[in-house]
């Protein structure tokens, strides 16, 4: 498991790349969700 996490020494780059991707996708979902609740709230 440990060797998987290390990613052959490139862990920082690989995991930050996947991390940023997840973050940006999640942010988009969040903004849409906020807009959605704003319109149905009143």
């Amino acid at each position, binding site marked *: 498991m440990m060797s*998987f996490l290390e*990613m*052959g*020494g*490139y862990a920082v*780059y*690989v995991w*930050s*790349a*996947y991390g*940023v*991707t997840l973050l*940006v*996708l999640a*942010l*988009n*979902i969040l*903004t*849409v969700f906020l*807009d*959605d609740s704003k*319109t*149905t709230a009143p």
Partner: protein
Amino acid sequence: MIKHYDSLKIFYPLAGRLMPWFGWAFALLGIFGLYWGLFLAPIDAVQGEAYRIMFVHVPSAWMSLMIYAVMTICAITILLRRSKIAEYWLLSSSSIGASFTFLTLVTGSLWGRPMWGTWWVWDARLTSELILLFVYLGIIALGNAIPEKRKAAQAVSMLTVVGSINLPIIKFSVDWWTTLHQPASIFRAGGSAIHPMMLTALLLMAASFTCYYFWLILWRVRIQIRENKQ
């Protein structure tokens, strides 16, 4: 020809039913894609594990162009025949497209750092992607600058169509310019004979991102329809 209002009445529930399908498809395909890419795909001879960034970098690059293509289709329909759905679709797509372009640039530089030793190289692909990001920002800026929704959609459609004519020319001129000044880029991971495992991982991730886009865009368009009905 369906009257404007009816097309909205049909679209709204249809989009509602399709949304969960796209949402789940995004999640499942994503999980499979990650599993394939991170576990099953073999280590690359040249780059070791670092090449696995490709499984988010390349699909994001495809998405940044695919979304622009979809926006161009919406833009043409808006200019030829005013359709409310296309207007909402176009205005809502630009931010998702910009996000994927931004992702391509960030993952590209994260991949470039171990390979080239620097975070950024004016390589043909990255440069064209950067220009595409600025085109997206221009589209978002124009859309926000016009208060009235319908007029904003028409102005953005015109800019999108003009942009779509220019994008191939931009790609060509950047490629020509960089070959004059830069060494060939290393993005041809594993050359043309890409390992089948890698290819399936790539396709799974691309399909997952596409479903993500359609899930989000249908959701956004429904919100716009509801907002304008009040």
